[in-house]
């Protein structure tokens, strides 16, 4: 029987490289005109900001990279955006929707 490794909580920081795990599926639900995240026993509806962030969560970009890109695209203060994204990815990681 294979060993089972206990999990631990992943903590978000600006260096974290968030990504959607294989079993979390983000897709556009054309019938309802919105983006959704399909997860075990759950359907999440990310808001517009979360969608923009999630599209950039590729496991390569860091939270800082994502914040920098969005700060440029939306001409917004980097510090503020960075803090918001750290909080958002922590929340989503705690829900099991993102890995860090």
């Amino acid at each position, binding site marked *: *029987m*294979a*060993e*089972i*490794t*206990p*999990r*631990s*909580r*992943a*903590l978000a920081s600006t260096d974290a490289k968030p990504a959607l*795990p*294989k*079993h979390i*599926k983000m*897709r556009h*639900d054309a*019938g*309802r005109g919105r983006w*959704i*995240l*399909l*997860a*075990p*026993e*759950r*359907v*999440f*509806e*990310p*808001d517009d*900001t*979360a969608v923009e962030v999630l599209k950039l969560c590729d496991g390569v970009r860091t939270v800082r990279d994502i914040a920098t890109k969005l700060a440029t695209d939306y001409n917004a203060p980097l510090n503020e955006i960075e803090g918001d994204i750290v909080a*958002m990815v922590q*929340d*989503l*990681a*705690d*829900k*099991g*929707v993102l890995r860090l």
Partner: protein
Amino acid sequence: MNEITPIAPAVQSASSADVSCMRAPMGLLAELTHRCPLQCPYCSNPLEMDRANTELSTADWQRVFTEAAGLGILQLHLSGGEPTARNDLEQLVATAAEVGMYSNLITAGVLLTQDRLKALADAGLDHLQLSIQDVDEANAEKISAYKGGLAKKRDVCAWTNALGLPLTINAPIHRANIENLPAIIEFAASMGAGRLEVAHVQYYAWALKNRAALMPTKEQVMKTVEIVEAAREKYKGIMVFDFVVPDYYAKFPKPCMSGWGRGSMNVTPSGKVLPCHIAESIPGLEFDNVRDRSLSDIWINGQAFQKYRGTSWMKDPCKSCERREIDWGGCRCQAMLMTGDPTNTDPACSLSPRHAEFVALASVESHDSHPPAFVYRRIGTQTADHSTTGELDE
């Protein structure tokens, strides 16, 4: 606490308000078979089970899944009975993946092998939900009337982890295992589960027959609330908890199925389409079959779906209640079973005139120091026995 039941379609918002109104259903519960090697006294299948020779064919189910995806259904729950008793499960999972539905296998695990689980994962299975009866082996065997189940479940957890499949453990909670809840939580964490459903038994169908043997006391239930709250904190970011409380001790009823005909459909092994899995306990409903009509036609026009959809069927106290679109009147089946009229307010609601009797039943039964023995769910004892229904009636 009014958490959704494990099988209800859950819409949670990642960072904005919940989706409040759905035109199309979100979830399909596909009861592939009523066959099951376990005999749990709280079995959620209806009193009258569909026999093996009436089960839908592989092609029937594949058509149903295709229609479901077309209707906008996102989540497919492959359930039973024991769904792995169907030897075409891999084909059905593959179809779900093809049509883009998120597939969830709801299993007791005891019939699985490592090769079969790998084949299911290869076919595109998204998630596995494994039920456990207890972490005390002797007690688990007593509850399920099945030998060696717990060891098998440990294997299934290990295989699931090794395949990289997400794992939910579902633990039905009742008087015979409620004191082991802390150990059950630790077990789930040690098995690598990302989610744990602490699901107090809901007393319909077969479980209603065993209510006196299963009902915990209010004090026991309140203690589980504390235990789960503490565990949520302890396992934050490691394991997500779903908590379903027994509504006998609730102030407000659960919004059963998130509202009748509002987000979820259930197809029985023989193809009947139900608004909830025990809707057959309500007289006067006509259940269409996927062999005769399309799923979308049934969803929109089916008599059983229209009957209690929305709020127009309600009478007071529901009709004028400001919570009518929060609770949706609670559970129609429970209203039927306990008051004899499905349009009555669910007696779990403190505003129901039958609420006091309802609470008293639970209190008396749960404090009986000599509870009755389990009536096991054996194949061959599925003949309806309605002696336990409508027992609050004069």
